[in-house]
């Protein structure tokens, strides 16, 4: 193994080191890499937007047969977004926002009810099939108790008395376990990214691994 001779690998390695220089303190090298990243993100989104959305879903269906003339309405509504460039007509942007945000809200209500509320509650119900063994019964009861006490912890419309205080204290135990697990997972994900970058520097760039 030897040091890389590819200009692209050198650029990637130098940019990686520039970002890591932030660990010492904020410096011009970090800011340079940060602004390159920002610009590239915008440029990338322009290309992806064009090739993944505008070309296949707007341009081609409208200008090539069979023409989907119904696209003219959302295009006209979408074009109102250009009102943002005019002080006189910037109120036009309310129309695409109204259609998109309110329409999306309407779609989300049954979806949220179905997936985030009913399915979650349904999965926690104590049904006979969950009591097949001592361990599964214990788990089912624990999940039910955890769900109820967590909900009680987030219930702020009543004073924490007559058992509510105790139940919310139990709820916070479950919440802390969940947050701890989520934190552990996040750390491991970031560490794996760090390992990936170190592998790139030592293996692909320097060739010492």
């Amino acid at each position, binding site marked *: 193994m030897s040091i890389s001779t590819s200009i692209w690998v050198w650029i990637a390695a130098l940019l990686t080191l520039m970002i890591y220089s932030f660990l010492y303190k904020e410096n011009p090298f970090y800011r340079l890499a940060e602004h*390159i*990243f920002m610009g590239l993100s915008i440029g990338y989104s322009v*290309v992806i937007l064009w090739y993944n959305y505008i070309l296949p879903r707007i341009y081609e269906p409208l200008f090539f047969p069979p023409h989907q003339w119904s696209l003219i309405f959302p295009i006209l509504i979408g074009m109102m977004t250009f009102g943002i460039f005019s002080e006189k007509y910037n109120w036009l942007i309310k129309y695409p926002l*109204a259609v998109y945000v309110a329409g999306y809200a309407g779609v989300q209500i049954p979806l949220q009810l179905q997936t985030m509320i009913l399915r979650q*509650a349904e999965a926690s119900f104590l049904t006979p099939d969950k009591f097949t063994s001592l361990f599964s019964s214990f788990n089912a009861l624990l999940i039910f108790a955890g769900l109820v006490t967590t909900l009680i912890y987030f219930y702020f419309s009543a004073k924490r008395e007559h058992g509510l205080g105790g139940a919310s204290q139990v709820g916070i135990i479950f919440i802390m*376990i969940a947050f701890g697990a*989520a934190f552990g997972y996040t750390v491991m994900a970031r560490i794996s990214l760090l390992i990936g*970058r170190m592998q790139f520097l030592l293996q692909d760039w320097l060739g010492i691994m």
Partner: protein
Amino acid sequence: MFIRRTLPILIAFCIGFAMLIQYFIPHPYSERFYDIVVQQWFITIYAFMFIFAYRSFFSHHIRKVKRRKTGYIFSIIAIASALLMAVGGFATRRGDFFDSLYNYLYAPLQATMFSLLAFFIASAAFRAFRARNVQATLLLVTAVIVMIGRVPLGDYLWRGMPDLIEWIMTVPSMAAMRGIRIGVGLGAVATAMKIILGVERTYMGGT
């Protein structure tokens, strides 16, 4: 005043309500309506919404360059990078040059940026994870178990570690997550209702 303020709210109510009730109407027309609005209208308008982001990015950086503000050179670099990626993508029709820009510039920068968080999480954890009470101790113990158990070290230290982590994730952690999800779902439904009924208008500029 009607066109500028009231009509957008009326349209929001109509489209929101229509999208809500179509879910409960199992008829081909209703399904077709859903397909047209979600597959065509939303995606088309979504594409135009990027104008907000591009305008914000370019106006911010161009203003900085025009006024020669501190660090304006970085704004020039940001604009140049955006143009390089965009022109590279269009000129080569997402060809090799665009792929190289993605693989050797964009992807490494993104991964490094996110990996940087590993260091900050470690320092934050050091301060936050002092076992001052039962709750903080639980958070600390669970996080440590999950972190150790997800690498070969966990299995090496104790054979039952992977099973313990599986149990933590599928029983106590899931119980709390379900409670949180139900709360999030109720909040989302309430916010969506406020948007449709015109109570929540901040997304239109607060009028």
